[in-house]
């Protein structure tokens, strides 16, 4: 569904992504792991059209998407849930969600989608008039996910959804990711938390120094000594 081939990204003279190739098959959850500065967020921002690539290709549903603007990526169906939630803090929960559909004009279907988001996150329905900035971290994460869903994505890019959440609700996040996948969403998950990645993803790729250094099934990750050594340094 999403095929990244020989992707290269540079900031000035610094090459952040050297030659990245991997695939996200339709209906699957794929994890992209890596330490700080490995290029994970750059990868997602390139897929979101925020960062321009200097070479390679991004094929989504068979069509070339490299170089498209951010709004066109959203229109094609690739939507990112950014790291650190990044809600619009001074706006209401409802406004946050409604603007997730900024690229859409099918007002009737948007209403239905909004109801669906509230059904999925009943907590949000109770606080729909509240300022998003006044919510807890977990609730803000729900707003960020709900907002992305309002764009009707076919492929969801999630940047460290478990980061900064209380350990007790990381489990809820795992359930949410699995629920989204069951609804047919293809998910590319960027994670530092290898446990979360192993719990949800089918396959995993490890990005190090701008290159994929490991690809394999996600389930075995936690037991894979080689991976733990190279990735976690232990």
């Amino acid at each position: 569904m999403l095929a990244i081939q020989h992707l290269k990204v540079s900031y000035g003279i610094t090459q952040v992504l050297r030659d990245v190739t991997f695939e996200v098959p339709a209906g699957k959850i794929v994890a992209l792991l890596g330490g700080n500065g490995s290029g994970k967020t750059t990868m997602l921002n390139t897929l979101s059209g925020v960062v321009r690539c200097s070479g390679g290709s991004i094929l989504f549903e068979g069509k070339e998407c490299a170089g498209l603007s951010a709004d066109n990526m959203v229109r094609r169906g690739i939507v990112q849930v950014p790291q650190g939630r990044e809600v619009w803090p001074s706006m209401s929960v409802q406004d946050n969600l409604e603007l997730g559909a900024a690229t859409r004009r099918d007002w009737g279907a948007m209403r239905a989608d909004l109801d669906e988001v509230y059904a999925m996150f009943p907590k949000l329905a109770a606080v729909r008039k509240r300022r998003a900035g006044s919510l807890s971290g977990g609730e803000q994460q729900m707003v960020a996910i709900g907002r992305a869903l309002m764009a009707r994505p076919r492929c969801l890019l999630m940047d460290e959804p478990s980061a900064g959440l209380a350990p007790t609700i990381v489990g809820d996040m795992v359930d949410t990711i699995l629920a989204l996948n069951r609804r047919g969403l293809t998910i590319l998950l960027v994670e530092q938390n290898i446990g979360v990645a192993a719990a949800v993803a089918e396959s995993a790729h490890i990005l190090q120094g701008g290159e994929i250094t490991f690809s394999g099934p996600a389930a075995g990750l936690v037991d894979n000594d080689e991976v733990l050594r190279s990735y976690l340094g232990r």
Partner: protein
Amino acid sequence: MELLVYLLLSGLTTGSLYALIALGIVVVNKATAVINFAHGELFMFSGFVAWMLHVQMGVPYLPSLLAAVAFGFLLGAATDLIAFRPLKNANIISLVLATIGIAFMLRGTARVIWGGKGDYLPFPPITSPEPIMIGGIMVIPQQLAVLAGSIVIMVAFAAFFRLTRAGKMMQATADNAKAATLAGIRIDRIYMLSFGTGAAIAGAAAALMAPLTLLYPDMGFSFFIKGFAAAVLGGLTSLPGAVLGGISIGIIESLAGGYLHSSFIEVSAFIVIMFVLVVRPTGLLGSTRFRRV
């Protein structure tokens, strides 16, 4: 007592105009973190457009005002295209200098079209110029018209900002531009819309103010300073703050002129800017987070 009420009323009237100018400055600053130093000239230019239509071509007042609003919008959008968009990634000093460049270009153009320095063009009052007495207070009907007009514009703008999708997109971009980009909002367009909307409000203010005073090509800067003082007082990023700041500056000026000396009218805005920056840099309703200005 009558003097006080009179001064308060006239302060409220000019203050409401300052509030409109400040709103335009804040709308642009909220979205782009830039102070548009051409804002006063956008105001002046739109005022002259209203004057040309109304006085020279005999167009009725209301359509002239709407034309000034539309013209202000276009001029603001052009400011974005010329001075902001190409320099978006440049440092703040370059951006501010670019808007100052626009200000000089507009002022020069206005001098060529509408006369040299010292030419003051009258704009006929839209209501009877005779003062009327309401409950023993002398009121100039034109002031009431200006006040009412300002309130209508503020309400219309608040409705646009809070209720329409475009207004919400502006707010979202101001809140978190990265999240707006990721949601598929074309923030370049939103910046243009912000410059345009800010200047459109200035255009409305100019057309409202014109019948109270005289127009001259160099008027922009002095009104910009009043609006800027009001925006600083209100916190630079708060829309209600801009309105509150504008009305406060208007009343401070009016009281200072009435009770101290008329020479205080012009300097009181500067005194307020200095005082606010020293005592409370975030203004009355400003957010405490620091911006890149």
